């Protein structure tokens, strides 16, 4: 089951996003050895600050098992910036109906090797179908995706072969990366669906979304109230404020802000309330 999380609803799903960033750290940092920045076990880059959309796959227990990120090609995106080496100095494609998809990954630890609903193969195809459908439903006709040769083979095996490539294969850490083109046509979507035996709506409906939101809020509430009972939250907030006030550099202050951001994820307490009146302008 898939959910779309973007800037409009991300405040409702901080737990899902946090799990997603940890999955990306395991896949791109540990397993694939890409040159990515990992802090506190989370892979987050500057494009995550540009309000991208994420399609996130969940298993039956509600844990994140797959994810992919989408950005418009009319504005800043990875091929126009950090992946520009792939294009060999050429200008990237720019189109209103072309999105860029990056950081496609699945959790090979949590998923099994079979063909069932909890397999790597099914989760991969479900995410392909979902990202293509989300794009298609937004009026997008094509996707340019930055992938490694393994993912390229996975696409071909899943009856989802790219119709073309742009630029050239370029090393990105231990493995080469390349930019492939996919259309968001019904024909392609139906082929991947048929290959993996995916029927019906791959996206969570409104009822399920509401339930996921409620579960996140409840979890934050529980953490916050247990912290509260122990008097820990007050102490932590006091500690953060002291650290901030005694910091000697912007770097130290930023480290405190990062801690506050993490505390916000687990407790739901607004960052502004934690560091009242303190901020690096």
């Amino acid at each position, binding site marked *: 089951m898939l959910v779309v999380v973007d800037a*409009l609803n991300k405040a409702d799903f901080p737990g899902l996003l946090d799990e997603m960033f940890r999955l990306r750290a395991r896949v791109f940092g540990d397993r694939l050895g890409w040159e990515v920045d990992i802090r506190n076990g989370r892979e987050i880059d500057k494009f995550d600050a540009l309000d991208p959309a994420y399609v996130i796959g969940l298993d039956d227990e509600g844990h994140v098992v797959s994810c992919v990120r989408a950005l418009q090609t009319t504005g800043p995106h990875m091929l126009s910036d950090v992946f520009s080496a792939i294009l060999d100095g050429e200008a990237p494609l720019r189109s*209103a109906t072309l999105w860029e998809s990056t950081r496609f990954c699945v959790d090979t630890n949590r998923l099994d090797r079979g063909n069932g609903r909890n397999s790597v193969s099914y989760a991969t195809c479900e995410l392909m179908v979902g990202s293509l459908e989300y794009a298609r439903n937004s*009026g997008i006709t094509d996707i340019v995706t930055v992938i490694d040769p393994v993912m390229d083979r996975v696409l071909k095996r899943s009856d989802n072969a790219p119709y073309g490539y742009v630029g050239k294969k370029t090393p990105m850490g231990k493995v080469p990366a390349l930019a492939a083109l996919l259309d968001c046509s019904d024909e392609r979507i139906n082929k991947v669906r048929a290959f993996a035996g995916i029927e019906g709506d791959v996206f969570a409906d409104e009822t399920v979304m509401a339930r996921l939101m409620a579960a996140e809020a409840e979890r934050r509430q529980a953490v916050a109230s247990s912290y509260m009972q122990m008097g820990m939250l007050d102490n932590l907030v006091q500690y953060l404020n002291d650290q901030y006030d005694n910091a000697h550099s912007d770097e130290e202050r930023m480290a405190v802000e990062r801690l506050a951001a993490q505390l916000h994820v687990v407790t739901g307490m607004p960052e502004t309330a934690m560091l009242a009146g303190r901020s690096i302008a």
Partner: protein
Amino acid sequence: MELIDLGNGTNKDAIFADFLHKIRERFELQHAAYAGLNPVNQTIHGFVTYSDDWKAHYARHGLDRIDPTLHKAGRSIAPVDWRRLSRDEHYQRVFRDAAEFGIAATGLTIPVRGPFGDTGLLSVTSEASQHEWELLRSKILSELQSVAVHLHDTVMRSDSLSRILRHPNLSKREIEILQWIAAGKSQHDIGTILSISHRTVEVHIKSAREKLCALTTAQAVARAIALGLIFPI
């Protein structure tokens, strides 16, 4: 659809407003509105097909400060159907007022992101029933996306500083393909000549069109010739 020609226009705002009226007619919509922000020269642009009464009401009550179609939709990468905004704290206020001025609550906003931190929003409304609206939306959405980017790019290029910054940056492949089109080759032929799929040819043509601020391939070829990117044949 005709592209926006600022060549001999003295009143650019009127030309942009006229383009919105054409959007409305072409896609059978009730209203169209554009808002754009250019951080390079710190200008805000706005054009609408709404009545003067609504514009006055909107300004008098400062609705621009709370309107979720302005403040929320721009943070999405996908078009935002206004139903998605109904949970916003200011939704009721803005949409109730709009309804009093006869503006339909059925609509969507297309967010545009440009290369220099510039952003644009094309909003459209429709008087169709929910079912008809969903059919219309899926039929027009792709073209509306292209039109939104075309309008945004043209507005952003409408002053001389931005025009220099935004000189079209085409790849060798895009130029090569436009040259073959100028030579009369079809997409299919070009794919065969360059040993790439015809859809790859198409995606390059779309990209070249947009970089040249053109809505059709013929317009793109003409502009590429005018800019000296390709040779006339």
